[in-house]
Every structure is written in C-alpha cells, then in structure tokens.
C-alpha cells in the first residue's frame, strides 16, 4: 500500500502565513491601529504595538477605551475568520496566492460587542487571544482576553456575537 508523502513544511507554513497576512492587510483599520498577529499553528495572538496616538487619558496616562475595544474586536474577528478559513487553507482549496483585499472572502459581521474594562491600559504593548465558544452556520459567539505584562492579569475582556458570511459550499 502506498501512502502520500507529507507535504513539505515550508509550503504549509507559507500557505497559512499568506492567508493570515491577506486577511490582516485587507483591513485598513488594523494597520491604522498598528495591530499585528503572531501565529503558532492555528493559534493567533494579536499584538497591539504602543503608540502615543492610542492614549485616551494623558494625565494617567492610559490608552483610550476605544483603543481597547477596537483591539479586542479586531482580535475576535480575525480569530473567527482564520478559523472559518482554516480547512480551506489546509486543503489548498483557498487560493492564497490570489487573495487581494477585493477577492478576500467575506468576513463575519459584528452583531454586538461587550467590553469589560478590568484595569486601565498602560502606555505599552498589549496582547489578546480570542476563543470561539460557538460557531454555527449563521451566528458565532467569541470571547477575547487582553493583557499587557502578565498573562494572568487581564486589563480587558470582551464577548461578541457575529453574523457569519454565507460561503460557497455552505450557502443556504
């Protein structure tokens, strides 16, 4: 019995990274905020690089609540989108070389988003990880946590509900 040899690791890595960067670069607001993503397998960590323009209270100083909300929402949508596309990325069904902002698959849309501010955001880098608690054909529920220096000391968390795009093959 013959078995197909495993796909070379650099091809797998390239396909995953290419898909992720197409998703990130397709959204101008992610660039405006200075948010990047670290990927380990299918696990994403969003990284918000500190910049003076992100300040909301110059007296403390603390980053703006809207920055925190944006960072959490961007992280949640990216996690959900990456997970939604993962099987297509892995199988090669999604042509990652042809991905442009115009040809990007439709992204989930936020229905509602609730941010819980636990402590003030310090003027330094922040990190976030999102967890998809439920992803159905139409709706998804995502929880996201953000921290700065200590993973155990969250400065904010959020829960959001999202409307999933109708996709080829899953269309109603």
């Amino acid at each position, binding site marked *: 019995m013959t078995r197909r040899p495993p796909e070379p690791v650099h091809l797998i890595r390239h396909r995953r990274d290419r898909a992720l960067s197409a998703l990130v670069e*397709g*959204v*101008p*607001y992610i*660039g*405006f*905020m200075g948010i990047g993503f670290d990927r380990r397998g299918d696990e994403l960590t969003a990284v918000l690089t500190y910049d*003076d*323009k*992100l*300040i*909301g*209270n*110059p*007296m403390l100083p*603390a*980053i*703006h*609540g*809207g*920055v925190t*909300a*944006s*960072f959490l*929402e*961007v992280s949640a949508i990216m996690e959900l989108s990456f997970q939604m596309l993962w099987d297509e990325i892995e199988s090669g069904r999604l042509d990652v070389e042809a991905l442009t*902002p*115009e040809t*990007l698959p*439709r*992204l989930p*849309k*936020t*229905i*509602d*988003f*609730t*941010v*819980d*501010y636990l402590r*003030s955001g310090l003027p330094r880098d922040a990190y976030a990880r999102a967890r998809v608690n439920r992803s159905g054909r139409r709706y998804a529920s995502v929880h996201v946590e953000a921290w700065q220096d200590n993973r155990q000391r969250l400065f904010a968390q959020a829960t959001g509900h999202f409307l999933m795009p109708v996709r080829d093959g899953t269309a109603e």
Partner: protein
Amino acid sequence: MAAKMTDNGASADARGADIARIARQFIEAIPFSQALGMRLEEIGDGVAVISMPYDAALVGDPRTGVIHGGAVSALMDTCGGAAVMCHPEALAATATIDLRIDYMRPARAGERITARATCYHVTRSVAFVRAEAWDEDETRPVAAATGAFTVQRETPQGGRP
C-alpha cells in the same frame, strides 16, 4: 470644581457652563480622539454629541468601504465619557467600566458618523450612559450603546471615598 449645589438658577447655570468648559477642554485634548478626527458638537448637563469624519484609514470591510466597528466603539466610548464628565453631579475624571455596542446597520461609506450620549443616572460611584450613533441618515441609527463609567469624586484627602 468643588462648587456647592445651589437652588439659585443663575449660579447653577454658571456652574453648568464651567463644567461643560472643563469637559470640552479635556475631550478635545484626547490623542486617540484627535487621531480619529472627532469633533465635539455639543456638551452640557449630562449630554454630549461628538462626530467623526469618514476616513479610508478606518475602513473595516474593504469591499464595501464601511468603517470598522472598533472606530465606532471609540466614538461611543468618548461620547459616553464626555456625557459623564459634563453631568452636574459627576466630577472631572471618569473611566469606562463596561460598554456594550449593538451594531444595527453598517454606516454608509463616505458619511460622517455622529454619536449622542446621555448620562441618565449617577450614583456615588457609578454613572450610567446610553448612546446612539447615526450616519447622515438621522432616521435610522447605525449603532446603540449602553455603558457604566466610574465617578471619581474628590475627598478632602484627595483620595476616593
């Protein structure tokens, strides 16, 4: 800012104008609000109206050109904070405890978004806020928000009660 509450109408009006002036100075100096181009339209007596111009850098969906929900959140959060700061019973500084936003429809590409927040109740330590946002169609809101904010009162020691 420790002016006493008074039933003298003229003095209360003067105090209200004072609060609004201080809140306006603070809001207009916020770096992130400036980065988003926010403009304070109205402020006073627990109500704030702030608008934000359309900017291609804030787009969340490249296919439609719709502004990212995060930028709308930032507008709502700023507007909510401003409403708290200009409430007659609140004092200068505030921070968001929680904020929930419902996105009712996408804001139309190219249009200015305006948020109006009302601080409808204040306790000793918490301010409750409701807000709505519109694009140039003022009959259908694009988003609604509810939030709780801290109320930081000065004590004689300068600490919080």
